């Protein structure tokens, strides 16, 4: 038995070590391929995963030495040595296969009776992302507040893995970090707020300073670290709120429209970063986020919930999309007339066509294929501005 246990433990340790090494290799590859900015961000994630102040310090030294010049960081010899040293250590790991949260038939109606969230069920594991999409006023924020335990459900059950480790509801709520759509105003400098947050989490003195510096470097906030609320844009305020939330090492991060204040490039970067950080080896966490940026959310989500009038009309895991879909739906933007579009796709199984907000939505039958559709376009010289397969996207639920 003892031998078996040791073997099992060694195997797990090895598995996590190799997982961590993979991450470091990934960083090296980013640097090699010229993705310096991404490489630097991932390098910081790895340093944070080590949970060792010596690595925090070295990482920060490299960043500061090269004044945030990403290409210089990548080419520096000490960077390679730093990555190699990190690869050699073992990491305290946390399994991502556990269910973080399970929701069963949760419903909520407001007292005035104007709105109701119909029974909803889903599970979330560590490292997973759930996207909430839907038009305004359809229950996304209500659902997030239910998940953060800020609102009381009428029926159903919400269970969290962390409940077993905590003594009170308050303690549980410390692990569920909810960032509302309108970021609450903070006072003092950005850095002071981060120091205070870390200090409240019993991270003091040198480690406090290093972690705060790393997280602001990670989220591109270094130039603003001594500024206050009034002197930074709303996009950076959102980033700051994310930095603060990440320092709290949450089990579940609930983000209400986090992309609304971000520019188009930042939206994708921040989402990718969040997805990556949620899969941290030492401290993985789950994310539930609501957004109107449908495609961006779909890209990183393991599951998307579309809410219409409080009813979860559709929920699926993006990895299972192909198994659950039947007929093809395409979104097309063109200068051609409706007749020309119909003529183009008539021979490849077009069932119906809708004009929806400047674009056509084309529904094809089961026998049609993407190849046939694109062949029709090329043979007909249809002037295409934009075409997208939305068969497995919740975009189709926004169609009138």
């Amino acid at each position, binding site marked *: 038995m003892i031998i078996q246990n040791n073997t099992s433990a060694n195997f797990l340790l090895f598995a996590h070590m190799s997982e961590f090494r993979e991450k470091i290799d990934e960083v090296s590859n980013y640097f090699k391929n010229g993705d310096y900015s991404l490489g630097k961000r991932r390098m910081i994630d790895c340093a944070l995963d080590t949970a060792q102040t010596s690595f925090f310090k070295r990482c920060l030294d490299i960043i500061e030495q090269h004044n945030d010049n990403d290409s210089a960081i990548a080419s520096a010899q000490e960077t390679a040595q730093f990555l190699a040293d990190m690869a050699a250590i073992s990491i305290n790991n946390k399994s991502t296969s556990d269910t973080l949260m399970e929701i069963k038939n949760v419903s909520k109606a407001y007292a005035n009776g104007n709105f109701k969230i119909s029974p909803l069920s889903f599970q979330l594991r560590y490292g997973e992302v759930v996207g909430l999409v839907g038009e305004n006023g359809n229950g996304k924020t209500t659902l997030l507040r239910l998940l953060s335990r800020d*609102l009381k459900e009428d029926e159903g059950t919400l269970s969290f893995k962390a409940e077993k480790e905590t003594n009170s509801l308050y303690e549980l709520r410390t692990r569920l970090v909810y960032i509302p759509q309108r970021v609450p105003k903070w*006072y003092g400098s950005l850095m002071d707020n981060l*120091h205070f947050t870390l200090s409240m989490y019993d991270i003091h003195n040198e480690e406090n300073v290093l972690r705060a510096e790393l997280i602001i470097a990670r989220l591109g906030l270094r130039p603003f670290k001594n500024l206050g609320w009034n002197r930074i844009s709303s996009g950076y305020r959102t980033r700051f709120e994310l930095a603060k939330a990440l320092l709290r090492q949450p089990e579940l991060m609930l983000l209400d429209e986090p992309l609304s204040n971000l520019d188009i490039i930042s939206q994708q970067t921040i989402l990718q970063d969040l997805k990556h950080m949620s899969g941290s080896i030492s401290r993985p966490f789950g994310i539930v986020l609501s957004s109107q940026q449908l495609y961006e959310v779909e890209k990183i989500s393991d599951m998307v919930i579309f809410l219409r009038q409080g009813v979860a009309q559709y929920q699926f895991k993006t990895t299972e999309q192909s198994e659950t879909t039947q007929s093809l739906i395409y979104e097309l933007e063109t200068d051609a007339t409706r007749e020309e579009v119909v003529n183009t796709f008539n021979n490849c199984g077009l069932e119906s066509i809708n004009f929806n907000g400047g674009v056509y939505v084309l529904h094809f039958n089961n026998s049609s294929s993407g190849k046939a559709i694109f062949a029709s376009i090329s043979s007909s010289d249809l002037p295409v501005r934009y075409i997208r397969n939305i068969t497995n996207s919740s975009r189709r639920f926004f169609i009138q």
Partner: protein
Amino acid sequence: MLNLSLKKTILSKPLIWNTRVVQMLVFAIVFHLIYFLLGYSAFNDIRYLYNHDSDFEFISKIGLHLTAGLVLFIAVVIWLFHYLRNNPFKSFYPVNKNYLRKESLLVVFIFFFTITIYHSYEYGKLIKSRKVAKGIYDPKDIDVIRQAVCFLPYELELFERQNCCDSAIARSKRYKAIDPNYCGPGNTYQSNYEENDQVVTPEYAPEVTPLPQPTEDNYVKEYNYLYYCSNIEYFSIDNRKTLPVHSTAKRWLLGQHKDSIKQALKAYIKIANKYKIRHNLDADELTAMCFANNYKIESGLEDIYYDQEILPDNNSAEFRTLNNAPLRLLTLQKESFFTISMWEVYGYITLGLSVLLLSFRFTRFKPWIVSVLGSGVVFVAFAIIANMLIDEYDIVYFYLGFTVLCIIKAIQSIQSKKNKLHSGVWLNWSAFGLSGFIPIIMNLIYDNTGEIRRCINEYYVVVREESPIHDWIGSNWDLINAGNFTFLILYFFMLYIPLAYKWQANPSE
């Protein structure tokens, strides 16, 4: 230095940093010191000690109050601005109940240390007073004053016939001294002028030689030195309520002992000089006045006040000021930093402000504002109900019952996770209501355990005996208030904070 300490505390002592206790401590120490020095340099004249007036102070008292108030207001507003910036409890940072207790203590400490700034001014004055008054007070002074005032008719009514030892008032006093239950004619509370005006027979004046029967020559209708039968009472120095000073005085007067009277007056003048009391007294003239026209007093002596710059006539003085001076100096000797009055007021202000602020800090704006405004509504409702009630105690019972109800409802609704707004209001009301809980109960007990006497057939009859607790309450109000502070703090720590902790985590409806 301050910045460095802030930097250090933010990295290692978040509670200290967040409550801004270091800055407030520095501010308070500086202002306590400034106000102490202002108090110490506020006066140089010993007469200030007997005449509390700004005329003797270099600093305008109103200005000082206004400045202190303004400084405190600004300091507290700035402090609140910083303190209320971050609330880790409402943001669900990992704080436990002990963190909240420590935070509460720091808030109480900050309020107390800040609002007592003016106290340092008083303490500065106390230290200066002791320095100025050092070596002046002598216990024998009071005996000298008591004896001399028999020959100083500055309080002319004491030399009236109706106040003499043979008057109905005096008789009543004597009866009362023999039997405290006496409540017959001449009783202070039942007297009327006509009765008092009658000169009673000498048998009722056992302590003095009877006055000569009035004749056209020796009897002055209104005033006479021989009528003096009073005594300056120095309760905190000497509890002898009656002293034989007036019998001695009468003996001297009737026996024409001019030298004795002159010596007594000279001793009085000496004390007046020692206490720096202004006067233009002449012992010879005053002695002569005692024997002029068979002890007749023409118009009495003028008692002047501190603000009268010029002494008007011969033999005028600050008589009353001198009467109070020994007692005042003795009180100064006994007074310490911790026995200066106002501590209880400071205590209640501190706790009141702390409860108000911490209830906001530990609940949320909506239940807090509803509970604050609601308290006003409840108070008005109580007043209306009290107006309708016949027995005034009913409103007290109503208040006590309501406070207990608030506590029960707070516990019940928070445990069962019921309506968050309502449970928050119950919780805050329980803390507001308990602020005066013990003193009100004690007052109720005090009123209902005291002795009740009725005047029946010229004698008081005890209808209800006084309970020992009545006497204890009457002489232990300081202890009761201290107990109330302790009770309130214990309630806040042991019940309010755990309930607020639960309340904060409870989901809304």
